[in-house]
């Protein structure tokens, strides 16, 4: 997304946010003093000095930053130098969570992150994803070695099964010799600390994965103000994951491609604030330039969750844009499904399908 158009909204949003804070301080009873102190403290510290807050990662005992850097877009930066700068600035601002996947840009995303984190590995919580798409444990273990090499590290903080989006994926993952076994083995070998899975398609598939009672530490899913209305992960999966103490990682806070912002249905700031205000560990956002990082940091530095009433108001406001799913096409079309995954499942490519 281009930041130029969105910069206009920043100040207005900031003002609206400040007004909401004052209103809640007046209404808040015991919290008045705390909120006022907080507001005063915040006013005293320039926004550029406030770090991105940290939150517990489920029941792992580890804390991660409430905003994470998406790995796909890191591979879309102009060059390694820009990636280095972006990662360094993110770390400086208090971002510790770095997302990636074995297949992003054919490995380039992992390589960029590995290089950018040289000498800084211990400041970061590094996640990548394994792209077996139904293939077994041995393929997964080979991918792990490749990911570690590209990321220039001897261990991952989090290793997740990528793109769990088809109704037969849980069966394929949990079959004897399937990818779930690789997660446990890698953990035993000390090559990964925590394990999880991701998917952008269907809450029902996520719930089936969770129903296996496998010791997942994390689960990643699309979470944004639109999701609440359409085939909702927020209402169906987040409560279940929280009940189980599994950390929720949000993604697609602006719908994956920012169309909802470009069409004026929501501002980038509102979208990110909403996602970060959910009861989740972190929100992973794609940032392919320093400008986008800066825009996100304006929201994330010293982040205070939106009051529940503001969240409800935003959900209601965007409901009319959300109810047909046109801004969440990753849930309904094949456009966001990786070709490798479709190939492994013997499905026709999106090009061979009607829209």
């Amino acid at each position: 997304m281009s930041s130029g158009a969105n910069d206009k909204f920043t100040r207005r949003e900031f003002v609206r946010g400040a007004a909401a804070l004052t209103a809640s301080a007046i209404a808040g009873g015991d919290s008045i003093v705390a909120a006022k102190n907080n507001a005063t403290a915040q006013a005293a510290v320039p926004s550029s000095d406030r770090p991105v807050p940290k939150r517990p990662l489920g029941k792992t005992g580890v804390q991660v930053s409430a905003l994470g850097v998406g790995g796909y877009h890191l591979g879309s930066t102009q060059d390694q130098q820009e990636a280095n700068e972006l990662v360094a600035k993110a770390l400086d601002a208090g971002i510790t969570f770095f997302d990636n996947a074995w297949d992003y840009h054919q490995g380039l995303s992992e390589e960029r992150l590995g290089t950018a984190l040289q000498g800084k590995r211990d400041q970061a919580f590094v996640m990548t994803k394994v792209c077996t798409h139904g293939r077994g444990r041995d393929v997964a273990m080979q991918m792990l070695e490749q990911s570690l090499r590209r990321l220039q590290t001897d261990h991952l903080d989090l290793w997740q099964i990528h793109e769990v989006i088809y109704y037969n994926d849980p069966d394929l993952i949990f079959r004897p010799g399937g990818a779930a076994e690789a997660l446990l083995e890698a953990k035993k070998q000390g090559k990964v600390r925590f394990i999880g899975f991701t998917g952008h398609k269907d809450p029902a598939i996520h719930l089936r994965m969770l129903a296996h009672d496998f010791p997942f530490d994390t689960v990643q899913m699309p979470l944004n103000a639109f999701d609440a209305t359409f085939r909702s992960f927020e209402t169906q999966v987040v409560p279940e994951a929280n009940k189980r103490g599994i950390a929720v990682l949000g993604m697609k806070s602006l719908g994956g491609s920012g169309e909802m912002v470009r069409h004026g249905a929501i501002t980038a700031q509102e979208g990110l604030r909403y996602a970060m205000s959910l009861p989740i560990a972190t929100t992973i956002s794609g940032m392919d330039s320093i400008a986008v990082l800066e825009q996100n940091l304006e929201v994330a530095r010293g982040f205070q969750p939106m009051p529940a009433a503001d969240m409800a108001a935003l959900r209601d406001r965007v409901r009319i844009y959300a109810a047909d799913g046109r801004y969440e096409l990753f849930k309904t079309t094949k456009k966001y499904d990786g070709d490798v995954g479709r190939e492994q499942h013997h499905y026709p490519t999106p090009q061979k399908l009607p829209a």
Partner: protein
Amino acid sequence: MSSRSGGAIPLRPFGKHADVSVSILGMGGHHLGDAKDEQTAIALVREAVDGGITFFDNCWEYHRGKSEVLLGKGLKGHRTDVFLMTKVCTHGRDGSLAMQMLEESLNRLQTDHLDLWQAHGVGFENDPELFMRPGGAAEAMLKAREQGKVRFLGFTGHKDPAIHLSMLNTGFPFDAVQMPLNAFDATFHSFQAQVLPELNRRGVAALGMKPMSGHGEPIQNGALTAEEALRYAMSLPVTTTITGMEKPDILRQNLRIAQNHQPMSASEMRALEDRVKDVAADGHFELYKVSLKFDNPEARMAHGFPLDMESEEVKEMVTAVENTGHPYPEIPK
């Protein structure tokens, strides 16, 4: 059934209305408008009646009225032999519009009453609330029944089991509910698993559609045969299975399957579900559950959703329904 001379298709009770029964195979109204000409369409309807079909599906907006006109002509002299359904296309708009559509449907179908009148294309999250709102279509449906213009009421939709469930939970006294039911649905976003048991529990007549997944793609693709597909759908605990038949050979094939129908055993059904499970799991044979392509422009406009012609799905939708997104012709007052 006096004027009928041909074969017989098993009948099943219409939900809790045990005094009414309909054929386990129903003739879909949309495909009737795809028949090569009027004469063919009329002959198809007559052969269907003669072959034992009593359930006839239609819809106010199919081919912009042509499907109802053709069915009306085909059923001339046979009205009392059949159970006639059509659908109303308010898509959230006012009950008064629904009543106008009803008059138009009755005219086109050349009858003074419908056996079943259903709210068409319930597919958006806010449809239940728009349907039930004061002055909405729900009121019109009850009024039409009171006036004796329709006997039973229902709704249809191909999109999302969750939306069907929330329609059911409005408390409106639906007699029938229509939904896609086929061997693929068992795996993907399943109406069979989520909606069908609830209908059976409530005694609401379950009407299956898309036994061949809409346009027969999985049959052309070799995933299963037409006979397997139709037998599977008719073996579910449903009242009838509606399928489109725009050609005499398709009609004859389906009549033969229905006339000889022996329900599949539970284990046969499981085996077929398992066989197609992997190809069903991404939903590419059931795009009506996911793609905007299967919305319809009239419904989108009524909901205030845009017709973004940059979108491939929207372009295909507009082509499929022969509607460029401009409003339908005015309804005569």
